[in-house]
């Protein structure tokens, strides 16, 4: 009994201690296992670079894994907000998991910076979605960078080969909306499945009418299948890959067939090649140096988590004026502070949020690369002052 009482009192002392010294709790929910593991692991790595104190307040990180599963993601978020009393959330990794957690996040009135692009999940005017921000560029930013390059190179006709899933659909829609005003004619839009064994038929169809360029809207290694088939069938025009293909695995699978093709990616992927004075160059190099020393080759997904932390770090001092961490007041102030982010130079982009733009990524956050000798070379980037 004595021990029990001692235990209770110790616990009480600890609880009082915790309350006296306010600490900021950052809840992180990522897909570090499951199909999106390659993204989630990189993001989790980057979280380890998070600051241990912000504006004199200690920072505590609680990291959960949702196994790329929407149900688990929702459970994780509920646990983070109710048990861990987090002040801000980072994650989820994928679009489906991000879409699934909106309700839980909004109900808890906690700001969240998701690491998946989110035209569908972020909206400042919607009472629920006003809590959600996103760190990556959306498909419009990607599409604009590509169309600008096409216009520069005099591309008039384009065929699209899209993977038959949500990603392919979203990319195709963004491409169509942006290409038409620029006078680029779309000859055909062909679909293929991620697990298809052959894309020859789609490639033949896309090549009919001999388009100036072919745009492949697919992510990861599946993007290589139509690309290799195009080269095998002797296509000589320009090939554009969407941003989803920009990873090392894709280069390995595609091999020689990828030479000379174009690909969209945040400039952080080719940080060293950026011209001096490019607004994100300094931070990009800082990220690359820190990440590669500890975890190996850089990953654009890791840079998203890095930038989300930067946004939080910049917003906390402003929010602290309104309330103590752990309170609803602080969370609301933090949300407002994140929404007020202006000209924050991250590794991936310069972030300027506004009540109508919760992504904050502008054209500076996108570049176009060319594959040369199995490596990425910076081909085109946004104008900067």
């Amino acid at each position, binding site marked *: 009994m004595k021990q029990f009482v001692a235990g209770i009192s110790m616990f009480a002392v600890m609880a009082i201690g915790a309350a006296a010294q306010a600490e900021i709790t950052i809840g992180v929910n990522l897909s570090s296992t*499951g*199909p*999106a*593991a*390659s993204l989630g692991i990189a993001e989790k790595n980057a979280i380890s670079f998070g600051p241990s104190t912000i504006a004199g307040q200690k920072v505590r990180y609680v990291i959960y894994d949702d196994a790329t599963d929407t149900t688990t993601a929702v459970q994780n978020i509920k646990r983070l907000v109710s048990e861990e009393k987090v002040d801000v959330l980072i994650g989820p990794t994928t679009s489906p998991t991000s879409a699934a957690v909106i309700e839980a996040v909004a109900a808890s009135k906690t700001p969240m910076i998701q690491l998946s692009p989110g035209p569908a999940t972020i909206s400042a005017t919607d009472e629920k979605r006003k809590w959600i921000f996103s760190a990556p560029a959306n498909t419009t930013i990607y599409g604009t960078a590509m169309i600008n390059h096409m216009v520069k190179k005099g591309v008039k006709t384009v065929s699209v080969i899209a993977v*038959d899933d949500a990603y392919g659909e979203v990319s195709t829609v963004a491409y169509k909306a942006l290409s038409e005003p620029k006078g680029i004619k779309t000859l055909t839009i*062909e*679909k*293929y*499945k*991620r*697990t*298809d*064994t*052959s*894309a*020859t*038929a*789609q490639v*033949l*169809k896309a090549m*009919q009418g001999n388009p100036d360029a072919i745009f492949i809207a697919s992510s*990861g*290694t*599946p993007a*290589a*299948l139509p690309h*290799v088939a195009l080269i*095998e*069938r002797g296509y000589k025009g320009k090939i554009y890959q969407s941003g989803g293909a920009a990873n090392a*695995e894709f280069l390995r*699978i595609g*091999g020689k067939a990828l030479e000379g093709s174009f690909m969209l990616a945040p400039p952080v992927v080719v940080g060293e090649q950026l011209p001096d004075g490019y607004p994100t160059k300094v931070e990009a190099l800082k990220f690359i140096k820190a990440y590669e020393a500890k975890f190996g080759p850089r990953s654009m997904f890791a840079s998203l988590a890095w930038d989300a932390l930067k946004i939080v770090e910049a917003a906390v001092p402003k929010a602290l004026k309104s309330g103590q961490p752990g309170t609803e007041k602080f969370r609301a102030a933090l949300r407002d502070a994140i929404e007020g982010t202006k000209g924050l130079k991250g590794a991936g982009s310069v972030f300027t949020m506004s009540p109508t733009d919760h992504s904050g990524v502008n054209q500076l956050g996108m570049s176009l690369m060319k594959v040369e000798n199995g490596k990425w070379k910076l081909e085109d980037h946004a104008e900067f002052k």
Partner: protein
Amino acid sequence: MDFQTLLILAQDAVTNSAIYALLALSLILVFGVTRVIFVAQGEFVSYGALTLASLQMGVMPGTVWLLLMLAGIAAVMETFRLLTSGAGQELPRSLATVLVPPLVIAGLVKVCTPLHLPLGWQVLLTMLIVMPMGPLLYRVAFRPLADATVLVLLIAAVAVHFVLVGLGLLFFGAEGVRTPPFSDAQFQFGFLSVSGQSLWVYVASSVFIALLAWFFNKTLYGKALRAVAFNRNGARLVGISPHLAGTFSFALASAIGCLSGVLIGPVTTLYYDSGFLIGLKGFVGAIVGGMASYPLAAFGALIVGFSESFSSFWLSGYKDVVVFTMIIPVLLWRSLSTVHYEEEE
């Protein structure tokens, strides 16, 4: 559509059909002998290609652990069965047959993986890893249910499929692989260029089909398998062990699956979950063959390949819809044209 496009599409169709035909044949074989509709057949295709890719990268393939795990479970089940049936004296021999080959293979892989052997040897090693999984899966999942209904066996097969796909993701990750081709040659027939690898696919699958035909028609084991497929009880009466036949048919199924994977690994990108859809298309072929006729199934596989290739050209978004909708008229025709009777159920 011009003639050249037509020829290229046809060639693509034949390449895919060859693989579907192989899978259709093994589905019929397994169904005939054990009455299992082996949904997990396709997983051997992905395992074959992914294992080969791991070996080429000099990484110990995760499938080796699966092999050892299966052998372990089979050994425990075997021990339990023999002890409860009072046949303990058979235990050492029976355990040796279950445990020794996988252990030897695992050791061999451990030694050979860092050596970066030539492609041919790596293919052989891949076959050695994947092929024993068939019989072991049969021992673990299907043999204890051997007398259950077709439906129960199908449910067990679906369960095996999910386990294998999940493990595939665990072993190989979500990204796909492409293995180097057996030959880089390109053959020019008029304006149609055929890659050496597709020739490999045609030749290897034709040879394998011919071998199967010879095996079933000329050898004692083959005839025994046919006898079991034709009438299980009758076969048992004349002294053919249905368990041995089941083991044998699963060994053939995993060998065919693995071979298919190794053959198409260089022509396409394969993922941990690619096998299912490939297997399913083989299944459509097998349905055309009424799950019984080998030549009809091969013909069905051709239909699947051609309709897939041409619908990809005209209606790429609805390709799989076209292929799988084909089952409906075939089933209609078969259920109207054949006399139907319930067997054993």
